[in-house]
């Protein structure tokens, strides 16, 4: 008979990379991300008796997300109230930008994603980096699937716009 700890580790430790990835993008700092991942695992272990065995990764990521949001509320409340200024970015989807965006490098994209409001940033992380389904994202973010779809669409537009903006900053500096 395996102990609860062994069971928990077998089910949850394989998702450590996912947990770290989400935390890293939510708190935007490696050191704090590690602290939050550890805290989330401890919390998950305490709640483990309530886990019904459906989707371990989504269950764990829900806790990681909650822990990170608590941390943001305490340490960087401004991160949670960033305005989402879509107007300012309208009209940037022309083909020239598109061509640039195709060549955007990792540094540029990382910066663009980091500057995105957290509610939209997490959509990109869960969908594009972690490959979660809409349903799983809905579980983790605790919103309906319709909201996942609209947030993800806005997040992609925003990311494209951010990349365009960053490219512009770059070329302005180069001039």
């Amino acid at each position, binding site marked *: 008979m395996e102990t609860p700890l062994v069971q928990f580790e077998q089910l949850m430790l394989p998702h*450590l990379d996912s947990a770290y990835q989400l935390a890293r993008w939510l708190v935007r700092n490696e050191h704090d991300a590690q602290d939050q991942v550890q805290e989330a695992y401890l919390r998950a272990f305490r709640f483990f008796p309530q886990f019904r065995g459906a989707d371990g990764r989504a269950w764990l990521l829900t806790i990681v997300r909650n822990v990170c949001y608590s941390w943001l509320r305490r340490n960087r409340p401004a991160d949670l109230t960033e305005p989402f200024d879509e107007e300012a970015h309208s009209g940037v989807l022309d083909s020239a930008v598109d061509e640039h*965006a*195709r060549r955007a490098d990792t540094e540029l994209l990382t910066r663009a994603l980091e500057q995105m409001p957290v509610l939209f940033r997490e959509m990109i992380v869960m969908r594009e980096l972690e490959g979660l389904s809409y349903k799983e994202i809905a579980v983790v973010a605790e919103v309906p699937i319709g909201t996942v779809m609209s947030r993800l669409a806005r997040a992609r537009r925003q990311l494209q716009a951010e990349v365009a903006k960053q490219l512009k900053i770059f070329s302005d500096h180069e001039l």
Partner: protein
Amino acid sequence: MNCDEIRPLLEAYLDGELDLVHSLAIEQHVEACPVCQRARKQQDALRAVIRAGLPRGAALPGLTARVRGALRREAGQAGERKHLIMPDWRWLAAAAAVILAFTVAVPAFRPLRSNPLVAEAVANHVRSLLPGHLTDVASTDRHTVKPWVAQRVDYSPTVQDFSAAGFPLMGARLDYLGHRNVAALVYACREHRINVFVAPSPSEEAERWSDLDGFHVATWSQGGMKYVVVSDLSMPELRGFTRQLRGATD
């Protein structure tokens, strides 16, 4: 389906989240509609950029060991010991390599895994890192910290600020170690935290180093006090810190 119906579903289609009927309808429409075709190409390009530009990084190498250590302390049962000495062989190999490296490089190092004081100190250190647990009195002023400590334990440890050396004093906390209340002085080094547990001790002891769950622990006694220093700081940096501390308490 027309363009207005297609557009909101296009992303879901590309994400593979649409049912077969809708997927086929979208494919048919996009095939015939240049405007939607352009939208689709843009979406494809954006996705390709994101996937190529944001590689999914793995967690940092020490994190698994650290999380396991924290879980083990949380579980804190004798029944878990079996698991504790039979970890994943990769970790065992990594731990062996680390121990070997330190044994060669640092003759004073002794693996003190069995030392309950070390395990307890590391557990206290980890707990102190949880939000809101680090300090009971948060102050960089030793003239504030020292009297606070003296009021709460029956001894008065030396309290110094080592900001000049890169280890600012952050405050102090009342903690419990070795079956008694002890003062824990908290220092920082960049984003890292250092806990210094201080309690009276009649004997003098040489400095001993050990390593537990990714934390370094130094213990020694001097001037009637026992010191237990815990941090995840790198070994050379933490040695720099203990030198400062020993210099100040001599």
